[in-house]
């Protein structure tokens, strides 16, 4: 491999992608009942547009918000609204959700498509993406339309399409690039037009040769560059991707647009293509169900709102005693305690670790090996912030850059003393934010 794009820091966990990397995407039938949270994106929650007893059509808008940073929510089945009530969600909190009984008809709401959507005017593309309720499918679930309008005074030079999928185990983005190559490339072009980017670069970790080959074959003819990234976590972190591909840095506490770049996930590009070509809102996504705790690991195209329980059952159920069920990958995913939580837009996989693998660790004293300093991809001193956090010295923790932490988990991963560095940094961030809001009020 020549000239792989790289960045300083990061770790090499066991990738375990072989479990599902050769498994084609299977369409998972819609469940009998979907639970669709009205807050499954960054920003303001959507307000419900339906009430108990209403009939809804597939793709009908069921939640919307007038706030600038928010996203519309659509139903992923047709049927009857059973309830609009708080339900458990993947972040451990109850979130106002629309529960819909599937009538099995998939009777579609009217959808406006376009045969050659790249001909659509720039603002129309942005509007369709907004109307489709598209958010970043890589995990952060930031509303895509909001991201596409660069802040005043910023010019987007580069649109980076993030196909790195650096989270171990997950292969959803890889399969998407392999099987829906055309949609991803079209989506990349649409996003580029919508944000006015001069150049589009699709970045893929070098451990996905098939995806790289297919994307190169199609993108080459479309004036889009495809680059291979060194295989290292978190290569797909927004700041790390910009550093690796463009050798630029996002200003501290600033936006990528301030260094002329915009990053969108390959899944987001795919969703944008579907929205503009078929008028289809974001009601389904590709996920990976994997881990040693599930019998038949697979890649699925699932409806948003499908409960974890149904998906795990479709994947053959638990293999032995389950230890952890994680929404997302092992580095940044959220552990779950309730399998009724639904798949939401930003979840790219369900990882089931058996009780043998899902270890708890007793921390030992820090021996100042500085591995956390060496691996931190934003160049913090995690051990120092941890020390300040443990002593409730929040000002010092802030001075040492706690707020710059991207919570990638490299420090905790690498620590030979098994210390929960990231947990302490998270605590410091919470305390610092609270202190600031106290101060300003």
């Amino acid at each position, binding site marked *: 491999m020549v000239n792989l794009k790289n960045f300083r820091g990061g770790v090499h966990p066991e990738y375990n992608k072989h479990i599902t990397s050769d498994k084609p995407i299977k369409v998972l039938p819609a469940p009998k009942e979907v639970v669709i949270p009205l807050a499954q994106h960054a920003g303001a929650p959507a307000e419900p547009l339906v009430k108990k007893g209403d009939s809804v059509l597939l793709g009908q808008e069921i939640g919307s918000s007038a706030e600038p940073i928010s996203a519309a929510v659509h139903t992923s089945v047709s049927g009857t609204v059973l309830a609009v009530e708080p339900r458990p969600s993947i972040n451990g909190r109850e979130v106002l959700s629309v529960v819909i009984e599937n009538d099995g008809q998939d009777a579609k709401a009217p959808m406006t498509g376009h045969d050659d959507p790249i001909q659509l005017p720039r603002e129309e593309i942005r509007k369709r993406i907004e109307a489709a309720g598209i958010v970043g499918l890589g995990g952060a679930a930031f509303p895509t339309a909001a991201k596409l309008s660069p802040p005043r005074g910023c010019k987007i030079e580069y649109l980076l399409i993030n196909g790195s999928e650096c989270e171990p185990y997950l292969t959803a983005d890889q399969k998407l690039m392999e099987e829906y190559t055309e949609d991803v490339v079209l989506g990349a072009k649409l996003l580029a037009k919508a944000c006015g980017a001069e150049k589009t670069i699709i970045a893929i970790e070098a451990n996905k040769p098939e995806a790289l080959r297919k994307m190169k074959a199609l993108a080459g003819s479309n004036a889009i560059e495809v680059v291979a990234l060194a295989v290292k976590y978190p290569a797909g972190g927004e700041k790390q991707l910009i550093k690796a591909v463009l050798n630029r840095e996002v200003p501290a506490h600033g936006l990528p647009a301030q260094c002329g770049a915009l990053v969108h996930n390959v899944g987001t590009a795919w969703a944008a293509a579907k929205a503009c070509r078929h008028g289809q809102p974001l009601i389904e996504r590709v996920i990976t169900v994997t881990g040693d705790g599930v019998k038949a690991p697979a890649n699925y195209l699932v409806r948003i709102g499908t409960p974890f329980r149904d998906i795990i059952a479709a994947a053959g159920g638990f293999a032995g005693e389950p230890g952890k*069920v994680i929404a997302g990958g092992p580095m*940044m995913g959220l*552990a779950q305690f309730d399998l009724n939580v639904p798949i939401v837009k930003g979840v790219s996989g369900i990882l089931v670790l058996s009780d043998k693998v899902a270890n*708890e660790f007793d921390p030992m*004293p820090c021996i100042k090996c*500085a591995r956390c*300093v060496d691996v931190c*991809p934003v160049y913090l001193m995690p051990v120092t912030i941890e020390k300040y956090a443990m002593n409730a010295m929040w000002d010092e923790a802030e001075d040492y850059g706690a707020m710059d932490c991207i919570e990638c988990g490299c420090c905790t991963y690498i620590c030979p003393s098994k210390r929960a560095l990231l947990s302490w940094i998270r605590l410091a961030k919470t305390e610092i934010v609270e202190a600031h809001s106290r101060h300003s009020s």
Partner: protein
Amino acid sequence: MEDSRLVLSPSPHVRDEDTTQKIMLTVVAALIPVWAAATYFFGFNSIRLVFVSIIAAVGSEAVFLALRRKPVTVWDGSALVTGMLLGLSLPPTLPTWMAVLGSFVAIVIGKQVFGGLGANPFNPALVGRAVLAASFTSQMTAWTMPFTDAVTSATPLVSGQASYAELFFGTVPGSLGETSALAILLGGVLLFYRGILDYRIPVGFIGTTAILSFVFGQDVVYQLLSGSLLFGAVFMATDMVTSPITPVGRWVFGVGCGLVLVVIRFWGSLPEGLTYSILVMNAFTPLINRWTRPRIYGQVVKQV
């Protein structure tokens, strides 16, 4: 419906396989060639002193952890490393009870009084060695020729009478572990390969010593190979707990060690300054960390 079988904990959910205990045991493994060379050259004295130092160090650690009502975590291997390092830094004919005292001081005064593993500002083995050197000066500078018990007056660093080859293989008088450059380098390569030794400290330390030796008209190769510089630069200065955590800080630390060493060697009244060079820089470690904070991603470098 909650599933009580499920473990709930924050991310990340996977951890690297390396542990603090593995790191300590790897250091022990890296010291094996050094100990083997010492035993080859100095015979039973090497086995006697290193064993006694280890047993005294681990024993002191266990007793003082128990007295502090802390879990007795001697299995972490840190006391084993301290005992082994101290034993290998002693001259071959040192009385056994002095080695025991040195280990006790290293663990109790050097480490446990500060709060145990990770909390000590100074390298414990060097604290033990410094106390022995100050208390029993003649015994701590009584050297023997390898393969014999013949007492000799001085190490090659002082006498200046050894060939490069003798210094490299270690057939010269000196402390148990310091004589064989070859064995030390073997251990150093293992530590480097396993990601335990940060090259910046030994390179800064040895490089500074080499440059200053050249500047002041000394025989550079001789200065590097004689005395305990290599042993200290590879095994003592690189002690994780007592050296800086920032990349730049490790350069500063290594270069600082070299500066102090050269000052003591060329102008001090001691024959060798290794122990004090590292202890002095240990004292600066917290300040070095503070002065060499890495630039955080996205922070603009201030224009001067």
